[in-house]
């Protein structure tokens, strides 16, 4: 369960997130909004990469702001993160990039490579497994980045920034299906996107950010519709 309590984040004089309060758990949530609305900042706070200026965030009861660096690192080892920029190590192969996510969790290298190979097959990337990441196209790099994140089967929180960017419709559908499966297994999937809809994720909860505030939450909308 992820909770934001009156979270604000400012860079110098500019406040990019203002008083965000929400809770997410066991569902797919799409953080939508225009460029500069604060989506990526919200994800960065959630990853524990920087603290909020005001308010606090808890992930499964763990307050991120007041936590030591090693605990934050352990928190990130439990996350599956797909950044907007794929962030692959260019002089390592695709399979190595994927297995790295498991190796840092303490999985032995051989086993990690084996599981990484399986995940790459799921993403239809088996042919590029032994290619250096720097030689892959942007779409392929994006898929490998997804594979690296979802290789962590025990991750209870999946975070993806602009998940459809650089993917063709077939790859978007594949990613949508895998994210839905992950949510069905109990994980919380949080996506940041400029679009409110994603292929195969029609029933996802949508939070629309505008000017750093949650301007609209489809959950509240549905609740009001139900009543």
């Amino acid at each position, binding site marked *: 369960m992820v909770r934001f309590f009156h979270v604000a984040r400012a*860079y*110098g*004089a*500019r406040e*990019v997130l203002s008083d965000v309060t929400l809770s997410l758990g066991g569902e797919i949530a799409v953080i939508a909004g225009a*460029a*500069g609305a604060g*989506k*990526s*900042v919200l*994800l*960065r706070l959630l*990853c524990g*990469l*920087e603290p909020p200026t005001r308010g606090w965030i808890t992930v499964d009861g763990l307050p991120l702001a007041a936590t030591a*660096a*090693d605990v934050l*690192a*352990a*928190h*990130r*080892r*439990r*996350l599956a*993160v797909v*950044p*907007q*920029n*794929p*962030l*692959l*190590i*260019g*002089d390592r192969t695709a399979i190595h*990039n994927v297995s*790295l*996510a498991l190796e*840092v*969790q303490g999985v032995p290298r051989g086993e990690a490579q084996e599981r990484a190979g399986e995940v790459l097959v799921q993403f239809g990337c088996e042919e590029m497994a032994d290619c250096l990441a720097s030689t892959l196209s942007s779409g392929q790099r994006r898929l490998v980045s997804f594979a*690296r994140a979802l290789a962590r089967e025990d991750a209870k929180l999946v975070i993806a*920034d*602009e998940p459809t960017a650089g993917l063709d419709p077939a790859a978007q559908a594949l990613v949508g299906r895998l994210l839905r499966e992950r949510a069905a297994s109990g994980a919380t999937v949080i996506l*940041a996107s*400029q679009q409110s809809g994603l292929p195969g994720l029609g029933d996802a909860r949508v939070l629309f950010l505008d000017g750093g505030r949650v301007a609209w939450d489809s959950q509240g909308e549905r609740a009001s519709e139900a009543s």
Partner: protein
Amino acid sequence: MKLEWRALPLHRLRSSLALLFAITFLAAGAMSLGAGMLADAQLDLGKIPAGAEYYVVARAVDGDAVGQAIAVVAGAEVRAQLRAGEILARAGTRDVGPDHLVVLEVHVSDRGDVSPNLRALDGVVDVIDLNASARAEFTRSRVVRGAVAGAGLLLLGCVVFVWAVVACAHAAGRECQDTIGVRVLLGVEAEGLWGPLGLAVGGVALAGGLASFAVTAFVVRAGIRAATLPVWWELAGLSALFLGTLGLAFGSARRAVARAARATVLAGLVVALVGVPVGHATGAPPPRGPQHGPVRDADILRALSRDLAVCRRAVHVARKGIAATELHGVVAAANADEALLRLAAAKRAQDVAALGEGEERCSALVAERQRLRGVLRSTRLLGPPIKPRQSPVQGDVAVRYGQAGRQPGTAGYRNGIALRTRGGESVRATAPGRVAYSGELPGSGSVVVIDHGRRTYSVYAKIGSSIVEVGEKVGAGQTVARARPGLLYFSVRHRGHAVDPLGWVANAPKG
């Protein structure tokens, strides 16, 4: 702390580390040489003769008379009178008298050569200058020059050594930026990354330094340099090298890893911030980081203006091109040249489309520039500089900034200072501004808050009574309240944070 030994691609750092080795080798050589020169200077200092020493050889019969005559020479003093036989006996020969000559040991406080004066005395057979070479070699100015040169070389070596370690750590951080970013994102502790990096950089720098010291020691043993360093100098130098290098390398590696992690991970998750799409669309440079919001917008604004100028120029050229094409078309029509006419028509259609696109792009750029100017206006701290500035009352400071709460009864002065006041004394505005608040606040009594612009406010609390209204414009030094006897609370807030009011007043802009 778990060190991730295999985490960093150290093979990428080969050239950086080789360069580091070379620079640290040279720098440590300079340090060693400088320290040697300092040691030489210290030794030479003790060798500077206090004056000139002479053996004045005289006939034995004139010995006493010569001794008395020598005292006449300025600064000369006869320290001993020896028989020639006594001196010769030092060589093991038998002292057989009587002596024909006597030798007077003469000390002259003047370092100059006075032997001609001594030689001119009656009865003097010869004058032997005992320390002429030492006087020539060990002069005070020469020793000082040596010490200054040594200290300079030592300092230069230290500076280059430190610079090399810091620069190499940061270069290494940049080289491994992608790996660091990915690993931090995946949950590797930053310590595990900067540990190996610091060790690699520190190890290579130490190797360079020690190799240089080893070569220097060899050179000393070979007798090329005059003086060897005292043992404690060597030990102190080596300890400083070890501790300093490792500390510096780890510290720099830590900062380099933090910077690399920020540059990659944060960039990966923040591309959607305001400036970037605009920057990409217009070819503007990418933003430097999220902390530089207003600066980044200003950069983009400048790039936008450049793009707009280029675009307007292109539109102008397109318009001129259309006019030229139309002229060609008219000429072709007049000459009944069907082919040229069709060509001119096609070219005109192309130019018109390009012109339309250019104009559209220009108006989009103008709109974007307008929008960004609005953003800049809202984020930049506009307004004239806040000056002059002055203390609100003349009284002493009773509680300094940051000291509130340390003594009983001072907790109410947090984020500000307490100034002693007399009853009825004028409390003056510290700088020009507009009254933002005037009234009672629970726990603070009467309070006046003045807005000075640039998101800077001054607060005057625990006053007797306010004499200004909200919205009233006040000048620097204008009375805004009457003090009550005791302590006045004075605080300055800049951009939402309290600052030291005395420092703020003292740092008023000049001019």
